[in-house]
């Protein structure tokens, strides 16, 4: 009887990543007492929210055996659209982000499905397209202001004086999608697609439909993040923002394999936390930019290495 890593290995992975997370928190707070102050905790959350939302969305796409490279561009484009309508719609403008995000996500899916183009390439293209659209929209103004109090409050009013409201939205959505992934038919099917595409197809499931939905979710969540970003900053620009790689890293370092079929949004939560803590910790300690990038990369490698164990067990029959 083969003793498979299986569940025990998964638990070990979570523990080791958690350990890494706690280790970092301890290290940073020792290095700089300001890390765990109110300002520090707020800073972590502000970094966490966009990475988390994008990572959760990307996780669904990864689990469905696809790739969404356009989440960063959707994030920017939706924040631009949101800022555009903030003055007319007030707080309701916050819905512009998720709505347009979902549409862009569906469009990704359409290119993938009807163009029969591998998702990696399809979203590489849409990433550039969406970025281009964003730049066209802001032509002339370069920065769209959205300073209405009522609108901004949706993101930056505080709960318990330490938690910005945007964090609350992000956590609600994250918990919801974790539930969807683990407990619903939809989630189970998406896992199945990543685990074995052929088997899922032969079991009578319309695979395309679910992959489309995964792209829509990813776009939706990127849109939520974009809308919240516009509210938080009080405006939006079309400047390219390097959030794609941290989001994908967050989605994959804590146990969701690139090929899908395992892991899930709960892993993305852990991954996002790790990266947010890492980034903020490095900033608070005023680590030099280049060194920061280096350390970031090393931590990602370590975390992925801890994940790779599972793949190796999998190859040994």
């Amino acid at each position: 009887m083969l003793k498979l890593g299986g569940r025990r290995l998964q638990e070990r992975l979570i523990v080791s990543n958690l350990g890494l997370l706690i280790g970092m928190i301890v290290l940073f707070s020792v290095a700089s007492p300001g890390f765990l102050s109110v300002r520090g905790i707020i800073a972590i959350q502000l970094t966490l929210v966009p990475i988390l939302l994008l990572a959760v969305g990307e996780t669904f796409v990864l689990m469905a055996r696809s790739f969404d490279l356009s989440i960063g561009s959707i994030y920017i484009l939706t924040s631009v659209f949101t800022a555009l309508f903030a003055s007319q719609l007030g707080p309701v403008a916050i819905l512009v982000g998720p709505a347009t995000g979902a549409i862009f996500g569906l469009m990704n899916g359409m290119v993938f499905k009807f163009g029969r183009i591998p998702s990696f390439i399809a979203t590489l293209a849409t990433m550039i397209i969406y970025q281009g659209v964003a730049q066209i929209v802001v032509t002339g103004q370069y920065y769209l202001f959205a300073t209405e109090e009522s609108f901004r409050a949706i993101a930056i009013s505080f709960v318990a004086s330490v938690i910005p409201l945007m964090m609350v939205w992000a956590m609600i959505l994250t918990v919801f999608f974790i539930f969807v992934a683990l407990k619903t038919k939809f989630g189970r099917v998406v896992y199945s697609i990543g685990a074995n595409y052929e088997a899922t197809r032969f079991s009578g499931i319309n695979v395309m439909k679910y992959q489309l939905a995964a792209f829509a979710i990813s776009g939706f969540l990127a849109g939520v993040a974009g809308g919240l970003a516009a509210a938080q900053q009080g405006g939006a620009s079309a400047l390219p923002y390097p959030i794609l790689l941290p989001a994908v890293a967050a989605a994959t370092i804590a146990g969701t394999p690139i090929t899908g079929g395992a892991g899930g949004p709960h892993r993305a939560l852990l991954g996002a936390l790790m990266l947010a803590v890492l980034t903020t910790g490095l900033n608070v300690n005023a680590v030099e930019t280049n060194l920061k990038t280096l350390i970031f990369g090393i931590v990602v490698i370590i975390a992925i290495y801890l994940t790779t164990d599972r793949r190796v067990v999998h190859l040994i029959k």
Partner: protein
Amino acid sequence: MASSSGEVLELTAEGIVKRFGDFVALDNVSLDLRVGEVLGVVGQNGSGKSTLMKVLIGAQKPDAGRIQLRGRPFSPKNPHDAESHGISMVYQDGALVPDLKVYQYVYLGREVTRGTILHSRGMRDKTSELLENLKIPCSSDDFIRDLSPATQRMVSIAKASLGMITGENKSDERIIILDEPTAQLSSTERSIVFDKVREWKKRVSFVIISHLLQELIEISDRMTVIRDGKNVGTLDLHEKSVSAAELHKLIMGRERRDIVVRRNASLTKVLEVELAKQRVFDVSFSLGEGEIVGFYGTIGSGVRELGMALIGSLRIDRGVLKKGGKSLGGSIAARVRMGIGYLTGDHASQLNIEWSVQRNISLSNWDKILTRFLKLAMIDSRKERQLAEEYMKLTNIAPPNPDAICMSLSGGNKQKVILARWLAKEPDILVLDNPTAGVDVGTREEFYRLLANSAASGKSFILISEDLDELSTLCSKLHLMKDGKIVRSLASAALENLGDEDIRQIIKGL
């Protein structure tokens, strides 16, 4: 060291004992292999034959017993060590790497380097030498993926014999153990592989493990039967011919049970198929309620394509495909919704192997495991558990643990999981494509019984198989296909009176 008949013994194992905790996998087992012979080893899954082989090649250490290789004590530390002494095993699943060239694959794991640079020319030449030596019809530069399955199999056997040519072995003789060498091969391919084995016999002694009793009888010099961790007998096929039925009895420990299949099917037509002049086949037939209709054909006969067309994974151009009078939808999802299922012996395309048994059974059976809450379809773990336990019991899956990961199950049990899923789904029509490939005789019997019971309760089946025994046991009607057409149809009355040999003759005559 010679045996009483004067044959030189290549390998002897005596009194091998192996325990896993309380479970005794090998109970004082002895085995011997003569030079230049083909020894067939048969036994149920879980009988201990795989464990025995692992002990022989050093992948497991026995708790007691000793092994002698050409008269000298042999206790390999690991498979690599065993290989350098001239004994190796070719595994069932091949682990072929499709994108490598033949010589790269053959040398995989023991590449020859000059310093740090791969000595490709040397490897290529040695591989060509090996291929020529063994008369394998391919070149060192061919890509594995471009080879036919039979040739691929031969290449993996060649990989195991590499030491023979390169002189890495400490000895010249060679023992190769083949684990299910013809699994997933068509019958023409199987005969190609076995012909090669007969050729190579002069220089290599073979131990072949297989569930295909008939073929093993044809190729083996002797056969050893392992049952419940014991060697229950070694038969010398040159002294006395052995029938599959006799072997069956030794393997199972009892007579084969008869399956009762209803031969006179009701006249209600469940499926009407008229697919004329398709690209790969041209057939027309119907299926009645409670009927099991069989299709026999070798590779190229279009029979497997027919199966794929029925489930919807192969596009058909025109033609009539009606279930209960209604035309079937185009996609697999639509067909499954309309009550058609598809089960193959190739579990890689049907099973989520890293998942538990429970989750594989519930895949497709959503209606049985969901509860709805505010428009969200949630999975009810209790219902899922119940479903899994019910059908695990029905199909007798061992070990009876719904959370067991499918990868750890034996081939036969993996098949049972897929069957359990489809039985739970209860499609009106189930298309079976070589469902018992690589499955041991005991499991096969259970399968047949389940199918017969299901048919008796009104479900219909289309059985596509290359196993004539299976077809004549189960089917009330058998269509023989060749070159895409049905060339002969045998109805139940005729089938009952014909034996396997007779059917074989008919097929030869086509």
